[in-house]
């Protein structure tokens, strides 16, 4: 089998499984849905490992496998670029996907949409692989849209819940904003750089480093800055950076396995991957990098705060994902692309672990997601407890854990950077460490330690996130450990969460692993270089870290959360009562949602409502009454009115049409 065939098989096997299960799933035996898709993804994972080994030997591939169309001198191809950057992404995607597939067998066991779900996640795996393996912008965009589409389908998987439908439309629409920027960016690349092929674009890009464009006449802007910022807007949508982050917390309406796969480990990191891939372009624009850095820093810190007040277990993890994505973006901003990729990888493992652990807890709690109703679960769910603890420790950056190496590298890299905004970013990522530790362990303590609160909770109403089909535990039920298909992925994910950082940091960051895949302008952005200078081995880094601020801050965060939620639970309540304004601010998520809803009147919910409300009358009313959409509503109404059904109106309109055409032509003529 030639390598090209293997490259093709890797995405196509999951696609094939998805197609078979999706189309014929209802006719096939139930078990075949998971066997087929798991086999597809497992084979894909195996081949990815093989490709990874191959790439480690120094083999790379860049070329078309299929020409889609040639038009106007540009040809659009399906092509693969297999280098170390791609190989590592393929490995992460297929591994996490495989874990999630196995986990789903247990998690979705009773769901009527069993085969549909497997088909979707396999389809997602295909799309994500196409995205990372692309060697041109067209295919990148295809994968980009396809993962968005599947994500949209999966968020709305439980389509009977209005909140799920609302959330999926919100995700869809917010991502449209990002995609619009992304598409414009690709258009700029095609128009000015004359190609869509990565290699061709990257080779000519340096010639355009000082090129200017005049979008607004008389205002010359740097071509590279405009292009990179537009591309980054795409990444902001997909990787949920402020202010396009609003869809990610709501996306938790989807089943937990996809939260782990799509909204933590893979799809949301597509933006990070894309910017890394585009490093030859981003390196040419200082302004764009600063923009990236500041956006990332804001996301890293402020989204972390929101995690503190969440009571839905999945939302806590979701906000932590937002914050961690912010860290990765910060790394991109200081040109530490390999660090961003490193954190992407470790984060994929420990965040998938945390999500799946949360899912296991949710199953144990009979689909109650409110952490205030949990407590003391460590006795009942030992495997979930241990693995979640490992995940949390990795997340907060405990030395020797995988998260420590990647996150500490980011913080160090920011420290060494001198790009505009790096001062603020350094503060943000440092403060973020404390916040992360605090909310992570708040959740950990509330769930696994302390009083067993579900007995009293059985009566009191769920708050804002009440789900109609969530039963919760009765006063006399006991939570139980999940079946092996659920715990096995937890254990398998816990291993890399624990160890991958220690093993991988040296080759990945300082061993020149990525080779030519990542370009850094050493003189302008010396952060990576400095980082290498200060690195003396993984163990030394861990021991040295014990005296550095990040570790102390993390320890303080853990201690504070223990004090607040284990020792003196009355204090948080008191703080909440005192600082009501602050609490409200956080509760409203800084008002982003309100802002979006009020200012972008034609925006998410309105259009969402427009689409899912079945009654047209309601919809026209909603449509016509509100904001920018009013115009379209009016036009529709007018045209509807014109379409009176009366034949002489039609005839008259034809004559008027002919008359106007005639007048128009004669006016030009005479």
């Amino acid at each position, binding site marked *: 089998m030639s390598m090209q065939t293997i490259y093709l098989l890797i995405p196509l096997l999951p696609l094939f499984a998805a197609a078979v299960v999706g189309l014929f799933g209802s006719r096939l035996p139930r078990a075949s849905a998971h066997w087929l898709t798991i086999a597809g993804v497992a084979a894909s994972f195996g081949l990815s490992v093989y490709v990874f080994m191959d790439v480690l030997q120094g083999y790379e591939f860049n070329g078309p496998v299929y020409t889609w169309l040639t038009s106007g001198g540009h040809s659009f191809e399906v092509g693969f670029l297999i280098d170390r950057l791609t190989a590592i992404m393929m490995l992460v995607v297929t591994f996490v996907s495989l874990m999630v597939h196995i986990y789903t067998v247990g998690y979705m066991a009773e769901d009527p949409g069993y085969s549909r779900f497997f088909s979707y996640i396999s389809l997602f795996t295909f799309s994500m692989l196409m995205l990372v393996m692309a060697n041109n912008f067209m295919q990148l965009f295809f994968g980009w849209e396809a993962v968005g589409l599947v994500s949209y389908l999966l968020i709305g998987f439980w389509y009977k819940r209005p909140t799920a439908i609302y959330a999926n439309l919100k995700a869809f629409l917010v991502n449209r904003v990002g995609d619009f920027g992304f598409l414009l960016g690709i258009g700029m690349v095609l128009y000015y750089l004359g190609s869509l092929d990565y290699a061709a674009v990257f080779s000519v890009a340096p010639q355009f480093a000082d090129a200017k464009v005049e979008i607004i006449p008389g205002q010359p802007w740097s071509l590279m800055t405009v292009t990179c910022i537009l591309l980054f807007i795409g990444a902001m949508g997909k990787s949920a950076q402020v202010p396009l982050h609003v869809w990610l917390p709501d996306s938790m309406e989807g089943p937990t396995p996809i939260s782990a796969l799509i909204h933590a480990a893979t799809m949301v990191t597509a933006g990070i991957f894309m910017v890394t891939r585009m490093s030859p372009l981003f390196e040419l624009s200082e302004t764009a990098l600063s923009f990236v850095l500041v956006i990332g820093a804001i996301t890293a810190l402020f989204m972390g705060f929101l995690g503190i007040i969440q009571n839905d277990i999945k939302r806590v993890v979701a906000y932590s994902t937002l914050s961690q994505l912010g860290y990765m973006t910060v790394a991109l901003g200081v040109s530490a692309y390999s660090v961003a990729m490193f954190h992407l990888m470790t984060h994929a493992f420990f965040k998938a672990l945390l999500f799946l652990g949360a899912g296991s807890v949710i199953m144990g709690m009979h689909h109650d997601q409110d952490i205030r109703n949990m407590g003391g679960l460590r006795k009942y769910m030992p495997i979930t407890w241990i693995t979640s603890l490992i995940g949390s420790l990795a997340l907060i950056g405990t030395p020797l854990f995988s998260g420590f190496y990647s996150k500490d590298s980011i913080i160090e890299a920011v420290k060494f950077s001198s790009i505009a905004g790096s001062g603020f970013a350094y503060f943000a990522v440092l403060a973020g460490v404390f916040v992360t530790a605090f909310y992570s362990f708040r959740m950990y303590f509330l769930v696994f330690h302390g009083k067993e609160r579900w007995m009293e909770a059985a009566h009191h109403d769920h708050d804002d996130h009440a789900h109609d089909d969530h039963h919760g535990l009765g006063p006399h039920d006991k939570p139980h450990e999940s079946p092996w298909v659920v715990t096995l992925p937890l254990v398998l994910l816990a291993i890399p969460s624990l160890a991958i950082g220690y093993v991988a940091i040296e080759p990945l960051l300082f061993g020149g692993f990525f080779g030519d895949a990542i370009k850094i302008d050493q003189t302008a952005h010396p952060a990576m270089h400095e980082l290498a200078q200060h690195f003396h081995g993984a163990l030394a880094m861990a021991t040295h870290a014990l005296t550095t601020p990040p570790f102390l801050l993390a320890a303080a965060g853990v201690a504070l959360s223990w004090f607040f939620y284990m020792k003196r639970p009355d204090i948080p309540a008191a703080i909440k009562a005192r600082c009501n304004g602050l609490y409200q601010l956080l509760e409203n998520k800084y008002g982003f949602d309100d802002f979006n809803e009020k200012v972008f009147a034609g925006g998410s919910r309105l259009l969402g409502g427009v689409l899912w409300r079945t009654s047209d009358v309601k919809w026209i009313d909603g449509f016509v009454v509100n904001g920018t959409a009013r115009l379209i509503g009016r036009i529709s109404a007018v045209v509807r009115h014109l379409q009176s059904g009366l034949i*002489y109106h039609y005839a008259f309109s034809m*004559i*008027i049409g002919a008359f106007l055409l*005639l*007048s128009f032509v*004669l006016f030009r003529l*005479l």
Partner: protein
Amino acid sequence: MIFQDFVFYTLAAILLIAGLRVITARNPVHAALFLVLAFFTAAGIWLLLEAEFLAIALVLVYVGAVMVLFLFVVMMLDINLDRLREGFWSYLPIAAVVGVLMAVEMALVLSGRYFIEAAAPVAKPAGYSNTAELGRVLYTDYLLPFELAAVLLLVAIVAAIALTLRERKDSKFIDPAAQVQVKRNDRVRMVSMPSYTEPEAEQAQQELKP
């Protein structure tokens, strides 16, 4: 030439007036008759152009056959033109404005004498048969459109029959398939009626009965 011009303008004037009356006459029969008049005058103009065959065909076919049939239909159907004409006056102003503007525009274009000024046709020699010439052209140069026009007429016949041929209304034949397929709702209509009727309503019903 003077005489011919005189005849032409007279016929043209009558044609226009007749055409106008076709759409303004209140009585449909009158309208149809004005149409006949319009055909006649058009035939006259064709005669002036030495298109005798066409002129006679117009009179024979349109006046003799089509219009007579049309008249019968109009008389038998008793169409209420007033209802059809409803809104005529309210639409007239805007229609007139558009019409006038359109006419002005066309006049602007056409007044410039842009048409090809064809040379006056050479007088045909004696024994020249307009009809034979027409026949020759139709069956040679214009064979394709001619045959296609014949198909067009066939389609018209097929369409007319397909749309109007029905089973006789007084036929007692019953379709068994239709009988089998009948549903309750086709036969029985459930009417919800109060068991108690107001005395006044009863009275009213009794009043209606005789």
